[in-house]
Structures are given as C-alpha cells and as structure tokens.
C-alpha cells in the first residue's frame, strides 16, 4: 500500500523537514493562485529541478502522477467546450473555445507542478519525521495525532479488510451484478466500520492505561544546519520571484 521512498540520500533527503514543509506549502499557494503562463512554466521547471536534485526514480514519480492526470484528462474533455469565447475548433455540434483550452492547460500545469513537489516531499521524508515536523511547526495537535493514527492503523484496517475478503472468497463468493453481491459488500463495509470503531475504543483504553492525558510527546529534535538555511533562503527567493512575476506582470 504505502510505499515509502525515504531511503534515498540526497541534499533534499537530508534537509530539515520543517524547511521542506514550509517551502512546499508556500510554493503550492503561489502556484495555485497564479494565472500567467510564464509563471506556471517556471514553476513546473523549478519542480522538475527539485526532482533532479532529489534523484527520485523517474518511473516511481510518473506512477504517482498518473491518478492526478487521469482526472486532468477528464477535464480536457469538458473544459474547452464549456467556456464562452473565441471558437478554436469544433467536434460535431460542440465548439471548443480558445479560453477553455487555456484554462485546461493552466490547470494541468498547476496541478502537476504542485503534485511533483508534494511527491518529492513525501518521498524524501519518513512519515514519522513529517508528523514531528508538523508538530514543531505548531500544526494543531489533533491534526498531528490524526496523521499518526492514520499511518499506524491504515495497515491494520487493510489487513482486516483482506481477512474479510478472504473469508468471503473461501466460501465461494463471486461478485456479480445482483442483490446478493450488493448486500455482501454492504456487510463488508459495515463490518469494517464496526471493527474500526471497536479498535479505536480499545486503543483509547490502552492509552488511558498508560497515563494518556491528551498529549503526545515527540522524541525527535530538529536543528537547522547551514545547508538548511541556505536552501530555505534560496527557495524563498525563487518563490518570491514567481509571485512578483505574477503580480507585476513583468516579462
């Protein structure tokens, strides 16, 4: 299920996770609100440079980009025809507009640029470190807890799911389009929910037994090194440049 790529060793892998989170966050915000093609293309180029520095396996990167791009392909079927404006081409009675195509192109570039940096972030940092860095960055405690518990129990729930599916298969269940199948799947989902909620109760009890009073303490400490500071300043400058380019309409 979750395959971590955190094993590599590059400048990006070694960077303080807090720096990475801040940079990815600011980058995503700026790219998301930008509209000019120059800015978007630079952003995409920047994200690809980051991939190169992180030395991520390109195959893995592409595999992870597929789901987003499936969605984007879908958008390309609709957006060009739903925007009013200068006609560009026509398919039967449908007319694709210049504006619609540009809009779809913007979305494609934006989402890919953002996804690429996100993938680099997740792939170069272990989930654990990421959670602790979020905590250090004063992300609300509850969100960090949710993040940790999701990571810890998604496997347990997945295993429970597989057990149920196997139990069904072992008794000759073959999915089809009939009431029996729908009912069985409904039971499966219901059973998973009930089991997860029971599990949550038991985990809470186990935590209470060990003195839990609402605080999770972290054992990791982070420290900014010289390369962290330099990378942070460099990336902030580049993101700022993108922002300036967008708002002053230079170039």
């Amino acid at each position, binding site marked *: 299920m979750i395959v971590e790529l955190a094993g590599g060793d590059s400048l990006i892998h070694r960077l303080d996770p807090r720096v990475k989170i801040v940079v990815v966050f600011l980058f995503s915000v700026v790219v998301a609100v930008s509209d000019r093609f120059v800015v978007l293309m630079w952003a995409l180029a920047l994200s690809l440079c980051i991939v190169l520095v992180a030395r991520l396996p390109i195959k893995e990167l592409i595999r992870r980009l597929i789901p987003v791009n499936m969605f984007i392909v879908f958008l390309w079927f609709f957006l060009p025809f739903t925007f009013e404006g200068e006609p560009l081409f026509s398919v039967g009675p449908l007319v694709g507009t210049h504006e619609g195509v540009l809009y779809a192109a913007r979305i494609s570039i934006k989402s890919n640029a953002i996804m690429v940096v996100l993938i680099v972030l997740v792939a170069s940092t272990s989930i654990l470190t990421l959670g602790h860095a979020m905590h250090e960055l004063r992300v609300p405690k509850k969100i960090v807890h949710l993040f940790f518990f999701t990571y810890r129990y998604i*496997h347990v729930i997945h295993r429970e799911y597989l057990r149920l599916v196997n139990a069904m298969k072992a008794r000759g269940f073959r999915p089809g389009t009939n009431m029996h199948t729908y009912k069985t799947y409904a039971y499966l989902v219901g059973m998973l929910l009930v089991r997860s909620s029971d599990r949550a109760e038991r985990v809470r*009890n*186990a935590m*209470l037994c*060990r003195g839990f009073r609402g*605080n999770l303490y972290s054992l990791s400490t982070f420290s900014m090194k010289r390369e962290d500071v330099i990378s942070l300043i460099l990336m902030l400058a580049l993101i700022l440049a993108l922002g300036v380019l967008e708002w002053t309409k230079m170039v």
Partner: protein
Amino acid sequence: MDENGLIINLEDICFGYPGRPTVLDKLNLLFYEGERMGLMGSNGSGKTTLFHIIMGLLKPSSGRIEIMGRPVKEEKDFREVRKKIGLLFQDADDQLFSPTVLEDVAFGPLNLGKSQDEAKTIARRTLESLGLAGFEDRITYKLSGGEKRLVSLATVLAMEPEVLLLDEPTTGLDEATEKRLIDILKGLDISYILVSHDMDFLKEATTGITCMSNGTIVLDDERIPHTHVHVHKHGRYVHDHGLSLPGKKR
C-alpha cells in the same frame, strides 16, 4: 499499601454489558503482594472484563473496589491506579499505537512526567532487559506477532508498575517465544495476575491457579500450590459450564 500486603480487593462486583446477561455476578477477589496468580476460565467467562474493571475502563454496576488499601471510584482515582497497575492487552495491535518502538515504550514514562531524556533512557533500559535491544527504531506495525507481544510488555513495564495484569499473553506465540516470556516473567520482581488457557504455561509462570465461572471466582479459598492441584483443577475447568460462548475466540 495495605498493611497485609493486600493489593487488589474486589467486593461483590456486578457487571453486565448493556442489553446482555450479567458477566460478573457478585465477584470477590483478594490479591496480595508477591502473588503470581494464574486465572483460567472458558471463553467469555469475563476475565478481560474483570481486568478492565480493575483498571477503571469499565464501571461495575455495584460492588466495591479497593486498590492498595484505598477505595477507588472515580476516573481521578483510577488515574493513580493506572500508574501502579499495568495491563497487557489481549491484542498487541491495540497496545502499540506509536509508529516506532522507542516512541511507544517512552509514551508511558512521558505521560508520568519524565523528561525526554529520562523517558528515552527508561525505554532503552526496558527494551534491553527484555532482550529487545536494537528494536528502538523498528516500525511497530512491521513487527512479528511475538515481537509485538514482547514490545507490548516493554511498554507496560516501562511505567514501572507494582502489579501486572496479563491478558492471554501466550495466544499466537510459538514455543520459543513462549519460553522466553516465561523466563522474562520469572525474572520480574513484580506481582501479577495472568490469564491463559495453557495449563503448562500457567504451571511454569504462576504460583497458584484460580478459576472463573458463572461470573465469579471459584476455588478462591483453596488456592493451593498447583503441583498436585492442577490435574483435577484442569478437570473441573473442562467441565465448567459458565457463560461460555462457543467459538467466540478468533
């Protein structure tokens, strides 16, 4: 501590889950310091429920609970109890919720107000004492069943409890790990109550065996050293017709 070394004193405890028949029916239990009690009873006879009542996770509908000479009633009282009594859960996946082993073992000490460094030291020391040195950075969900069980025990021991409640610690363990668990338990300087269906294991790890049936403790008064008792106790156990639900265990 009670002057007689009485640690757990349950008087006439009654409990039932909502809408279900009574599980515990006027149960009485006396547990003294230094005791290593084995607890047997058919599936569904209420052993887990009993442990949860001692820890204050379930509230009895009537009866009195006294821990170390003090009556305990409210959540606030039980918070103190949980510092002294450690419960090892039946399912290790419930107990290990932190991503890494070290964090999970350090969780209890941190809650008790230890500093990060102290908590880490305690966690390392506990792991080492259980032969788990080098497990600190292992991811909890990737541990094997036996490792999970031993790490769970470490998380409880790290809180330095005076009493342990062990709920079926041998389920799913292979013989070697079971042997290791016995050695660990024998080496501990702690009183404990141990639930198990395994006669041989109980014989090795406890000083006396108590049975639960029909929601109460039976044979409590004749807790004789088991060397000659367990044979016929075993017989009684088999004939037990308590609230057993066949096939309840997974």
